[in-house]
């Protein structure tokens, strides 16, 4: 109980701090509270108890006030002004796009070269934003994950494992799968898509050939629902995690098959068809990454043998 009182107070003081600062401040405050409580207890000739700890904490001052007094440690991300760089690049890209749109509007057909140049500049800026964002993400992951203390990592692990197996998450996943299956089964013939970026005419996205993939899509969806239910029903949580990983591989293969068969309207321009192919590749890659993540989770669930034992580490 004493520990939870101290943890509660320290948690309040350090909740807005960065990982490295949080760990150090928590350690220092804990030492102070325990030192102070021991001294107070010795003064009164009693043992340290909850009352003494509460009194010491009261003397420390309100947690919010102490937290506000700490200098805010700037992280590398804040210091490096990366957000500002991305915002500036995005701003320039938007400005170019507006100019391009205005040129096309004012002198349609006569300004192909400048518009083409503008599109190239915008593409280059978009690429720069993607690269900067990737660097940004890598640094963020380093700052927030690798520098975390052991306790922090353990807490995160417990949270991620409990999120994975929580009934709420399972229910939401099942609802979204049912919704997705309903949409794709009932409306796949009527999903509209732009035939051409310039034309603006809409046609049906899929050819009748796509109907042949529906049984496989339904089967994978149904298996995923069963795997989700297993998270709630059985104790060995790693089993459904392994099944979901295998299902993601199956989904990836199905998308690859769709890519090869390409059951999309033949009326699409080469550009639109290429865009659809890129999207299909990204989806397949997404499923493969998902499969790897779920396999990793399965290993964690297997090693920690469920949440109770992992909490006790």
């Amino acid at each position: 109980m004493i520990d939870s009182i101290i943890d509660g107070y320290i948690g309040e003081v350090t909740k807005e701090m960065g990982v490295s600062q949080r760990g150090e401040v928590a350690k220092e405050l804990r030492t102070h509270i325990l030192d102070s409580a021991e001294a107070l207890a010795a003064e009164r000739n009693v043992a340290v108890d909850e009352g003494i700890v509460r009194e010491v904490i009261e003397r420390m001052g309100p947690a919010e006030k102490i937290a506000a007094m700490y200098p805010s440690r700037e992280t590398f991300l804040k210091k490096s002004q990366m957000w500002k760089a991305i915002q500036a690049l995005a701003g320039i890209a938007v400005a170019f796009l507006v100019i391009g749109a205005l040129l096309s509007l004012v002198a349609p057909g006569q300004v192909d070269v400048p518009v083409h140049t503008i599109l190239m500049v915008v593409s280059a800026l978009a690429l720069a934003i993607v690269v900067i964002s990737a660097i940004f993400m890598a640094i963020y992951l380093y700052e927030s994950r690798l520098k975390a203390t052991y306790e922090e990592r353990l807490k995160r692990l417990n949270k991620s494992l409990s999120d994975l197996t929580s009934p709420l998450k399972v229910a939401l996943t099942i609802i979204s799968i049912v919704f997705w299956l309903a949409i794709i089964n009932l409306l796949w013939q009527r999903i509209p898509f732009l035939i051409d970026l310039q034309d603006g005419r809409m046609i049906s996205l899929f050819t009748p050939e796509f109907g042949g993939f529906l049984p496989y899509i339904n089967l994978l969806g149904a298996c995923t629902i069963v795997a989700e239910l297993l998270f709630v029903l059985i104790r060995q949580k790693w089993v459904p995690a392994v099944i979901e990983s295998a299902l993601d591989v199956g989904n990836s293969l199905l998308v690859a098959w769709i890519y090869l068969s390409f059951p999309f309207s033949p009326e699409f321009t080469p550009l639109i068809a290429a865009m659809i192919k890129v999207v299909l590749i990204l989806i397949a890659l997404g499923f493969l990454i998902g499969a790897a993540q779920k396999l990793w989770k399965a290993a964690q669930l297997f090693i920690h043998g469920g949440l109770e034992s992992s909490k006790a580490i």
Partner: protein
Amino acid sequence: MDDILERFEAEVKRGVMQVAVMCLLQRERYGYDIIRSLKEAGIGVEEGTLYPILRRLEDERILSSRWVTEGPRPRKYYVITEYGKEIRGKLLASLKSISRAIEILEKGMNGAD
């Protein structure tokens, strides 16, 4: 009125506390030890407020610190740096000059009564 007095006292105390801490840290001390010495010197503070001040002074290179893990629990020891000593000298001179000025003003105030 009490609120105003409390706020005013807190502001003055915060400034004075920084100088007092710099004086105490002529030798290495840890947080609880600093608070005990401050209390003995008659500077009562909300104990939690000391640690952000130590952190700030450390960030400003006025203090340096090290963790000592021997003993019942880990303790962070602070000591004033050479740069901190320079600052402390100037601050003490400034405080003394302010104190003298206040004294003069107070005498003038009493004389006017």
